[in-house]
């Protein structure tokens, strides 16, 4: 049977938006290659019949449910390897995100399968799937096909659009999975811990985002003053959040938030792909960076090459003056 098995991540009784995009994409592609669209879910009691069946609204025909520890990749690898092996799915599909990468990679080894990652689009050609994958900091796009079954497709964060949910319900099938011995040797001690202040960056129209180029955590004072003058909020890259300069709740990108404000002003952000995927939907992108070769200048609408410590304070004053003058 030629079909697609998509992994859907959930937490506290709700599916991850990025996973819903992958489920929607899996359903669309399965239709094109004439196969079944199935979904794998792994977790505990919050995976109710109703929650699992609701994936039918995004196009899934069947949902395989396995009871195993949540938030870790290896139990999911065991479950998906079993279902792909027994049911003969031709492709395994993942939305972007940390777990999807780990599960997809592990399945590659388990099933001796081809894998593509950071995929931005998938096309059906003669009943087979071809993945489009940007490489070299998005300076080229390769079209990749798979040799033999199955093929593993790991999408880039937000690459797949979430379909408008319908009323259809999927069939829910319980799967009994025997975990591999090594899959039981990783134990979740604490999951989903929030660190630092709670800030809301997703609803802000204007964002000032700070990166490592600010030099030190005090550099964020300049961002906060500028955001205050603009009437916006402050966001941060993963690098500075991990370094403890700014709270996790403000983080943009691969494991953080996805934002699309009217203005995204990036201060001292070089602009790696993991950052880009979290903010590329912004209407206006302004980047200030001292390195003229920073990748962010390739996707900014206005780029300023210069020293943040000189530019940000003056910009804050100029915006205040402008607002006072016009108001």
């Amino acid at each position, binding site marked *: 049977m030629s079909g697609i098995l998509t992994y859907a991540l959930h937490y506290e009784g709700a599916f991850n938006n990025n996973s819903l995009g992958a489920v929607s994409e899996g359903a669309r592609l399965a239709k094109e290659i004439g196969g079944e669209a199935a979904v794998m879910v792994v977790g505990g009691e919050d995976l109710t019949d109703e929650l699992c069946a609701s994936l039918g609204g995004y196009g899934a025909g069947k949902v395989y449910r396995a009871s195993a520890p949540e938030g870790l990749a290896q139990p999911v690898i065991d479950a998906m390897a079993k279902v792909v092996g027994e049911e003969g799915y031709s492709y395994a599909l993942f939305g972007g995100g940390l777990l999807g990468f780990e599960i997809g990679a592990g399945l*590659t080894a388990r099933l001796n399968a081809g*894998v593509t990652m950071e995929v931005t689009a998938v096309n059906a050609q003669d009943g087979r799937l071809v993945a489009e994958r940007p490489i070299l900091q998005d300076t080229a796009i390769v079209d990749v096909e798979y040799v033999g079954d199955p093929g593993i497709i790991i999408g880039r964060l937000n690459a797949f659009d979430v379909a408008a949910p319908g009323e259809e319900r999927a069939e829910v099938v319980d799967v009994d999975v025997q975990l591999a011995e090594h899959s039981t040797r*990783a134990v979740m001690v604490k*999951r989903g811990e929030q660190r630092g202040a709670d800030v809301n960056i997703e609803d802000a129209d204007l964002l000032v985002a700070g990166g490592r180029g600010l030099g030190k955590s005090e550099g964020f004072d300049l961002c906060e003053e500028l955001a205050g003058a603009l009437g916006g909020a402050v966001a941060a890259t993963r690098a500075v959040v*991990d370094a403890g300069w700014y709270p996790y709740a403000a983080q943009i990108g691969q494991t953080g938030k996805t934002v699309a404000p009217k203005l995204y002003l990036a201060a001292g952000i070089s602009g790696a792909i993991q950052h880009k995927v979290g903010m590329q939907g912004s209407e206006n992108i302004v980047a200030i960076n001292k390195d003229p070769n920073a990748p962010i200048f390739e996707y900014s609408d206005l780029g300023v090459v210069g020293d943040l410590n000189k*530019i940000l304070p003056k910009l804050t004053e100029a915006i205040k003056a402008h607002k006072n003058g016009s108001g």
Partner: protein
Amino acid sequence: MKICVLVKEVPDAAVEKRIDPATKRLDRSGEKNLNPFDTHAIEAAMQIKEGGAIEVEDIVAVTMGPGSAARALHKAVSLGADRSVHLSDDALADSDVCATGYALAKVLESESPDLVLLGQQSDDGECYTIGAVLADHLKMPSLTQVIKIDVVEGRLRCERQAEYGYDTVDLTLPAVISVGDAINEPRYPSLKAIMGAKKKPLDTKAIADAGIELDRVGSQGSRTSVLAINPPPEKEPGEIIEDEDTTETVAKIVSWLDERKLLA
């Protein structure tokens, strides 16, 4: 215990990257260097050793690549590894993720490490999935993007950012861990360490030495095939201002923002 640190040579960031149109593979010629992400993995190994909570007898740098990759190993031993293993064979050229993971796993199997450490992300090829691939081959528990490792009662307590916040996960050894660059600040090698690096053992292996099956590596062992390479969609280039006179620069930014009604 024994720690294997996987390292890789990558084109120097200062050298322009290109795809070879004939083979459709990344052109890996040009100035090469140790992958900067890998220095964090070596540093993590050194800190576990120096931390003293668990005894580390042997830190081994392992790489797969052409002859020039020995330079990355040399850098790795100057940063503290005790010895190095270089898997080098023409048959490995054009291996994809699936084939590369298999070959590296065979080399690691012969070392029987208690811990395998990797840098979070290769600077080229973007193959930051390799840690999870190796873990499945080696049947070891695994985590990627780890930013803190503590030895707690013989287990490794790891922290990382995941989809819903920070996760803390305990791994029982042997294990495979990919570390993020926030985990530490790598040390610089001393002159003495650089001079001493040449004396540390380097073991070069061909595929037969590692028990690697020929038909599972190279292009015949790869499970993906590149059909085409295309330029990305054209994007209108943005306006660039070089800051010479900051007052003038700021005035330009303000008027740019004002034109787009962002200062209302």
